[in-house]
């Protein structure tokens, strides 16, 4: 399959999404945000990290999910299993672990009264236990949070009983990306940005290529396949149960600058790593609701970037950006990776201005709907998926 340049092809592929305008209110309504808390973030599988974040037994990290008012402790037990718990001591309710990440040697201790838990969450020791009433340590471990792992990505589910397994939830995305060897790519950098925008506005701002030739007219100049009028076109768009991917190809030749030329001279020495699971040269997977996996081919190798969007309030989101690369084989390749990181950050710094000003504009209430063109079909699908969960208009 090659990038097709014709117009309105995605409305043909996905006629059920229709082509009308999309309501703006969900992007700035407090009421909608409150509904999203229970109907989306407590009812879906949420990515919280990777298994490489906790490689050894006793390694842990904490995710405070502000939107849901929970603090989740993810820990690898002595048996190697990754588990999730509410990060709360069951004695008096103190937050158990205060650092964002760390490592314990087999057990976790609550500093308040020195209650001790195993790295599998079992209550092991209670000082002055004899002075309690009918205390049964066997039944009093840390409160578990449903936790599962797919291809090294750790997900949690905050419902008492998830209605789908992680695998069922990921559906076609898992089918597409199974075996992609994400573990071959190592984390180079993590950046957090405090964005003054609704989390869906941030998701939308990244979730189409229509804006590339305008907002990113210099940084992405000539980077992706365009039609004769200069508009980006996708190789393909795939919509799954809740998730989506759009894929781009590169043009036959890319803009070569003096820096790029110097960095590229040993590019053929890089071991080939091109996962067969990729659809195009850049695949933008949105894993509903707040997670993105961006797979990008660079030269002979492949990198991936993830975004986690953490809503703090209706108009405030922490945008977490992680970049992963294969092990470099030369200083040139190290610097190529650094260059990719800089270009990506520059691009996202441009996106930031859009995110915050789109939110500011929408929040004025001046427009009731946003108007989407054919290449903005991933947004159309995303907003439908949001509303399918929230049901704000269904009940109206």
């Amino acid at each position, binding site marked *: 399959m090659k990038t097709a340049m014709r117009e309105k092809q995605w409305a043909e592929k996905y006629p059920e999404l229709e082509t009308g305008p999309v309501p703006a209110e969900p992007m700035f309504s407090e009421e909608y945000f409150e509904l999203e808390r229970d109907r989306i973030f407590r009812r879906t599988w949420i990515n919280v990290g990777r298994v490489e974040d906790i490689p050894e037994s006793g390694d842990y990290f904490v995710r405070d999910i502000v939107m849901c008012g929970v603090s989740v402790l993810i820990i690898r037990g002595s048996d190697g299993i990754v588990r999730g718990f509410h990060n709360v001591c069951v004695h008096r309710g103190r937050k158990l672990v205060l650092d964002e990440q760390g490592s314990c040697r087999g057990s976790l201790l609550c500093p308040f009264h020195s209650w001790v838990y195993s790295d599998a969450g079992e209550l092991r020791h209670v000082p002055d236990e004899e002075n309690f009433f009918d205390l049964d340590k066997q039944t009093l471990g840390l409160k578990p949070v449903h936790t599962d792992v797919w291809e090294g990505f750790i997900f949690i589910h905050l419902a008492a009983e998830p209605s789908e397994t992680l695998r069922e939830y990921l559906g076609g995305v898992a089918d597409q990306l199974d075996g992609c060897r994400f573990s071959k790519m190592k*984390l180079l*950098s*993590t*950046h*957090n*940005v*405090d964005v003054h925008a609704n989390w869906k506005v941030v998701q939308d701002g990244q979730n189409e290529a229509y804006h590339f030739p305008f*907002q*990113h*007219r*210099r*940084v992405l*100049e000539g980077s992706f396949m365009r039609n004769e009028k200069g508009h980006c076109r996708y190789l393909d768009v795939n919509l799954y149960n809740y998730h989506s991917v759009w894929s781009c190809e590169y043009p036959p030749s890319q803009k070569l*600058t*003096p*820096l790029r030329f*110097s*960095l590229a*001279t*040993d590019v053929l020495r890089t071991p080939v790593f091109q996962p067969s699971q990729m659809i195009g040269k850049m695949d933008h997977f949105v894993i509903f609701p707040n997670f993105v996996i961006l797979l990008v081919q660079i030269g002979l190798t492949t990198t991936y970037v993830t975004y986690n969007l953490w809503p703090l309030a209706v108009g405030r989101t922490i945008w*977490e*950006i992680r970049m992963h690369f294969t092990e470099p*084989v*030369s*200083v*040139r390749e190290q*610097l190529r990776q*650094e*260059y990719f990181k*800089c*270009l990506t*950050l*520059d*691009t*996202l*710094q*441009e996106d*930031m*201005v859009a995110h*915050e000003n789109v939110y500011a504009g929408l929040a004025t209430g001046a427009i009731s709907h946003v108007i989407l063109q054919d290449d903005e079909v991933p947004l159309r699908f995303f907003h439908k998926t949001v509303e399918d969960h929230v049901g704000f208009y269904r009940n109206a």
Partner: protein
Amino acid sequence: MTESLLPDEFDDLAPFVDSALESERERTEKKVTVTMDETRAFYDAMIPRFHEILDYLDDYFGETMPASAHRLYLMSLSLVEVATLVELYKQPGAVEACDPLRFVRKD
């Protein structure tokens, strides 16, 4: 005898050794505070030597670099960070972009 700041064959780049900054944060801070003329002067000095610099540094790949080579490596990281200003944006930052320092490196 004191060790020279940079490897002998790159001695001419010594005026730019203040771009040998250890952290991404420091490099980004420098990028956003210096003038475009200063950025261009650094770029113009480094770029014609960049092949040679990379060949030199690649000989140390996977090893501990001597301090002088390490400085050259850090200057190369700075070049990678600011080259886009000269080559693509023609201005001190990306087009209509937020303050880069709002992106806080976590690791």
